[in-house]
């Protein structure tokens, strides 16, 4: 919308007695939102078309003969809008009463309870008691396939799910079947949502408990969950997500809106792959010594011993980074390699890869990438080379036989055999799980997963994105940037970085690709790296 010299770019109107100026073309619903007033709505969703069919966002516009749907009525100069007038309130109360005519009111066993818009609106403005005496019609539940379960009785027929499949997934598998009080959402008979790569989003956008996740079914109450802003670790697109945790376990992943990356959506593959964050049997304490000499040690002892071995290490160095680790950890590993007496002979990372990318047709920015790890691009920027074949197989054959110093960061040894690193002069393994290949390690140091630490990833768009800590780490596992940062600091004779932001500041100072970026600038929305640095 360049300046066309015809009309002002903004309009000023009055909502509930308060003057507000919004860009031309803003809906009344958004105008009210901009001043902190939520107009109830079901069918409207910012990522979908607005059919104005739920009739609960009606507001009074002075001069208009009837109440207007605020989701599709555009703000105009001089408009006087009442969202809270008697007429608007009575209308909402009436609409809500209709919504409850056949609603089972099974909130005590409903997964949506606590975050349900029907519950919220009725609690705010509904009638204290229903007046219906007729029996309610009963549908029961319907398995839509995939991870989606449908409770027809709870449905308010907003058709967000139908429109998501039509407009965003471009795979019209859902529809409204029958009509009137018999209307339900359904697929084509036995053909469900199986194989639809983004169908899980219909659960997120359902404003009530009609569409629920089978995986999350009856697992936790919404009010017991802690929400931690994070980044999806399951591919290199890095969708912005929230970790929903309870009892120090991740219960589910939900997308977090970011129009630059993933819109309101995330893919089912990413959504479903969270169990590994809860996997028990972690490395919990540092241990030192090879084979039968292996013994547990505390961090101070382990790091002091390791510092001594590193300063006196013989031979060149091979670094194995992990594209599942944060930029801070990878940068600290690279710095450690530079501080070693020998030169860095190789520094590699691996990435399990999917055969194809899976784009979301209606929101083309969002693509399930081939790299099924979050930080392949960060690892590449920080000087690690991709190892292994195009499909992500192999890559550590050389390192396995390597004669010098080998430092392995992250869970890169799970698929390696017992003879891995048998010839090394020094073998340090920083991981979350023990493995057969770690048997030869001189030092096994427990580190945290991304869910247990703060840090940042670089996604496939070349965007730095921060994630926060959602889980307590097991016992004495520590963030890798802290462990490696302490060693680097000791070798350089400087202070250990005390926090992830500090580690990031050192990283930004050391690597030109990150030049000028600060922790604050990255914020919770991420920040794009300078393009030349990404591709250069």
């Amino acid at each position, binding site marked *: 919308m360049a300046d066309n010299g015809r009309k002002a770019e903004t309009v000023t109107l009055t909502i509930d007695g308060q003057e507000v100026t919004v860009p031309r073309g803003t809906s009344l619903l958004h105008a009210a939102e901009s001043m902190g007033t939520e107009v109830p709505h079901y069918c409207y969703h910012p990522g979908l078309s607005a059919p104005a069919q739920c009739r609960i966002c009606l507001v009074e516009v002075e001069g208009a003969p009837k109440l207007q749907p605020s989701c599709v009525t555009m703000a105009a100069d001089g408009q006087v809008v009442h969202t809270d007038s008697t007429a608007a309130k009575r209308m909402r109360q009436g609409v809500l009463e209709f919504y409850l005519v056949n609603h089972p009111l099974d909130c005590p066993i409903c997964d949506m309870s606590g975050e349900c818009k029907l519950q919220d609106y009725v609690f705010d403005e509904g009638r204290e008691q229903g007046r219906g005496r007729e029996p309610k019609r009963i549908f029961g539940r319907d398995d839509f396939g995939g991870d989606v379960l449908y409770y027809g009785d709870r449905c308010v027929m907003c058709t967000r799910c139908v429109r998501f499949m039509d407009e965003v997934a471009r*795979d019209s*598998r859902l*529809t409204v*079947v029958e009509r009137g009080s018999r209307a339900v959402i359904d697929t*084509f008979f036995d053909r469900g949502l199986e194989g639809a790569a983004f169908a899980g989003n219909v659960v997120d956008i359902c404003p009530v408990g009609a569409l629920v996740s089978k995986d999350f079914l009856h697992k936790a109450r919404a009010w017991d969950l802690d929400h931690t802003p994070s980044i999806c670790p399951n591919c290199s697109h890095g969708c912005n997500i929230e970790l929903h945790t309870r009892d120090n376990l991740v219960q589910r992943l939900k997308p977090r809106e970011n129009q630059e990356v993933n819109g309101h959506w995330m893919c089912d593959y990413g959504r479903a792959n969270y169990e590994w964050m809860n996997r028990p049997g972690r490395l919990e304490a540092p241990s030192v010594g090879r084979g039968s000499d292996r013994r547990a040690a505390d961090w101070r002892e382990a790091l002091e011993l390791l510092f001594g071995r590193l300063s006196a290490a013989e031979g060149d160095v091979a670094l194995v980074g992990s594209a599942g680790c944060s930029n801070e950890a990878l940068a600290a590993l690279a710095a450690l390699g530079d501080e070693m007496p020998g030169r860095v002979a190789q520094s590699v990372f691996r990435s399990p890869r999917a055969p194809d990318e899976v784009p979301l047709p209606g929101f083309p920015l969002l693509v399930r990438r081939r790299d099924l790890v979050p930080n392949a691009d960060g690892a590449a920027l920080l000087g690690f080379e991709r190892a292994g074949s195009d499909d992500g197989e192999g890559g550590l054959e050389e390192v396995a036989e390597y004669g010098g110093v080998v430092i392995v960061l992250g869970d890169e040894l799970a698929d390696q055999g017992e003879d891995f690193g048998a010839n090394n002069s020094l073998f340090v393994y920083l991981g979350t799980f023990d493995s057969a290949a770690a048997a030869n390690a001189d030092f096994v140091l427990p580190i945290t997963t991304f869910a247990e630490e703060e840090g940042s990833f670089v996604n496939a768009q070349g965007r730095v994105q921060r994630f926060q800590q959602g889980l307590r780490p097991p016992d004495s596992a520590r963030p890798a940037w802290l462990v490696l940062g302490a060693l680097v600091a000791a070798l350089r004779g400087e202070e250990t970085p005390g926090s992830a932001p500090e580690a990031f500041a050192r990283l930004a100072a050391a690597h030109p690709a990150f030049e000028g970026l600060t922790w604050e600038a990255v914020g919770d929305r991420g920040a794009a790296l300078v393009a030349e640095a990404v591709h250069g």
Partner: protein
Amino acid sequence: MSEVRFRNPGWAGNTGEFDLSEADVRGTEYVGERMLDGGHPSVAPSLPYMFVRKEPDAPLFEGPYRERFDKIRSRYPTARAALLPALNLAQELRGHISPETMDEVAGLLGLSDAYVRGVATFYTMYNKRPVGRFLIQVCTNISCNLCGADDVLAAFLEHTGTELGETSSDGNFTVVEAECLAACGFPTCVQINSRYFEDVSVDDVPAVLDRLKREVNKGF
């Protein structure tokens, strides 16, 4: 109460004054024979498509039906717009819209199967299950109800020996309730396939059914 002057005429427009058959008034094409070419495009949508003879296994679409389908497709700007008449045509041919029929029509028009299911189930005039040769729709809405539609409905069920919505064992009759058929001046109104029977009383029911059975015997 005086005696009812006008007995059931059996079809709309018969005032009892003239000895005219329905075919005399509306033309043999309309009352009897199936027009495979579908008639002139301007009137084709209003022509009856629920015939006595049904071929549930007939292919979609061949011969004259293929021509009519192509004509339908050419008359509408989008595939979605052509869906209703396409389903009409499929029901005319097969007698009901089965899931398989929905799927085939979706394929023919390039629409999603779920969307076609949504449309077909929205409209009550698409039979989602097989029906008898005669689909007897008894209006039980307010005007007819006041004039004894419930009894008429019960009489139809009794004389055909079926349950509501079920098909009689000889495959001839399916009796269903209908909402207002827009013939409130002539209660009780009964729509049988595409024809209206007005002013139907309980006593008329055996005669109506006899007439239908004669049509079956004539070989439709």
